[in-house]
């Protein structure tokens, strides 16, 4: 008996030791870019989050285009890095991930578990600008109020951010250089940030419009500053543009689909082609309208790779410029 168990355990260990189970592509994609195994769509955030909802709407579109299922799994943690680790440890031909820009900010911040060379961008599925929001029942009533307070008493007006030297910090760093020094208070979860503003625990919030839609409609939050140079269609409100206060170079929030760099190019292209259908999918379009994402959010693979590199470059440059990175 003990011998049997001993053999079992020994085999297991021996096998585990010499078997490399993550790296090879074992029959997932055929040589012609056709797939015969389902492709897991990794979402590095919790169920119910914006990335999760987007992924669950994209999944059926991809399925229709490629004829295999794209089941969604959630692997939250570390601003998306845990999910990226999952992507890189899984079979390349059987996994893709839906990742927001915030996760890439960790690459330039040096806290990420992956590098740009480890992945292949497939397509961009959304683009959204960021705003600073205030509570209508809060201390400050407009950008003028807020900014004057920030100028007069640097580092006292609080803004809820995602933390960890992310895009929020960089953009607020840009404002700081123009004289508006806010104190950033990090909250890992979107719901915590919103809650903090709702209970006036902080004075303002850095967020995309889609993530606070309920509060906009409910009249609880209003935008006071948008990071960009053109007002966002569909969003009412008397808000200032960052370009008007001297911040013209902004980093947008975007979401894209990515594959493991080891996924063969023809397979990546096949997925990218199916991804194009997302742009016209009625349910996804409705989601985008509802979450006030920018039009033209979709970008095909041919342009997207360059975009990601450019975006990372911008993050690095601005991060250093505004003192967020050393």
């Amino acid at each position, binding site marked *: 008996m003990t011998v049997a168990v001993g053999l079992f355990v020994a085999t*297991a*260990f021996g096998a585990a030791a010499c078997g490399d189970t993550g790296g090879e592509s074992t029959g997932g994609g055929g040589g012609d870019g056709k797939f015969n195994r389902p492709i897991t769509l990794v979402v590095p955030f919790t169920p119910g989050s914006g990335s999760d909802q987007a992924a669950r709407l994209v999944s059926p579109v991809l399925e229709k285009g490629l004829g295999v299922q794209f089941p969604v799994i959630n692997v939250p943690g570390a601003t998306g890095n845990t999910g990226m680790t999952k992507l890189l440890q899984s079979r390349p031909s059987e996994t893709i991930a839906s990742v927001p820009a915030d996760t890439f900010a960790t690459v330039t911040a040096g806290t990420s578990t992956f590098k740009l060379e480890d992945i292949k961008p497939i397509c961009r599925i959304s683009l959204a600008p960021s705003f600073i929001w205030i509570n209508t029942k809060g201390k400050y009533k407009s950008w003028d109020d807020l900014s004057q307070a920030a100028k007069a008493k640097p580092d006292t007006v609080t803004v809820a951010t995602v933390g960890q030297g992310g895009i929020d910090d960089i953009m607020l760093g840009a404002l700081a250089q123009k004289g508006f020094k806010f104190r950033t208070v990090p909250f890992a979860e979107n719901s915590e940030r919103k809650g903090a503003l709702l209970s006036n625990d902080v004075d303002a919030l850095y967020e995309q419009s889609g993530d606070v839609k309920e509060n906009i409609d409910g009249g609880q939050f209003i935008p006071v500053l948008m990071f960009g140079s053109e007002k966002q269609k569909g969003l009412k409100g008397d808000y200032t543009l960052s370009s008007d206060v001297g911040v013209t170079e902004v980093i947008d929030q975007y979401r894209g689909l990515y594959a493991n760099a080891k996924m063969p190019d023809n397979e990546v292209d096949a997925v990218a082609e199916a991804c194009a259908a997302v742009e016209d999918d009625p349910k996804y379009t409705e989601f985008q309208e509802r979450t006030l994402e920018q039009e033209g959010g979709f970008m095909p693979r041919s342009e997207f790779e360059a975009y990601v590199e450019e975006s990372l470059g911008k993050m690095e440059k601005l991060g250093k410029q505004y003192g967020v*990175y050393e």
Partner: protein
Amino acid sequence: MPREVVTGGETTDPSTGAGEPETRAPEPSVEVIERQTSPAGLAKELLPEIGILLVAAYLFYVAGDFDYRERPGQLGPQFWPRMAAVGLGVAVLVRIAQTIRDRNRPVVRVKSEFDEYEQSEAEVHWPSFGLAAGLVVGYAASTMFVGYMFSTVLFLGLFIWLGGQRRWYVTLVAAVGGLLFTYIFVGVVYVSVPTGVGIFDTITVAVYRLLGIQ
């Protein structure tokens, strides 16, 4: 506090209370175990505690090396772990002190009618423990190689058989159970359990298809 349930009222030495009027409720019956702990015995008893103390100190020290971008005026990521390490250290020190203080104190155990069922020191058969631990570890390890389906069937079969059930339907339960749960977890709930490598992978996926899982 001693339970109110009284099972007799006799102490281990019946000579107590002889001739004295009963002025209070009878005491629950107790078992008194005398002991004398030698310094060596004490050290052995305190080994885990000393180990924990050392670990706490080590973790406190390591916390100073956390790599992060410092922001002026903020506590940093080492504050909380250090507080916890201090708490741990203090608790262990008090515990060690208590143990030393009580080293020669007899142990008094209140007998209760449930003793039979609650022997917390039920005999542990160490080889069996080793076997169980080996099975569980083997289960986890083998999954990466042979895939969840095979390793589950294997594990169930071995565990049940080695646990004492030597009847033929063990294999049946194992096979059916393993397949059933694989179906539920992969097909219904979609937990992406490993499918193994090489031939195991191929067979597993074939079975998936058979069961209707894509």
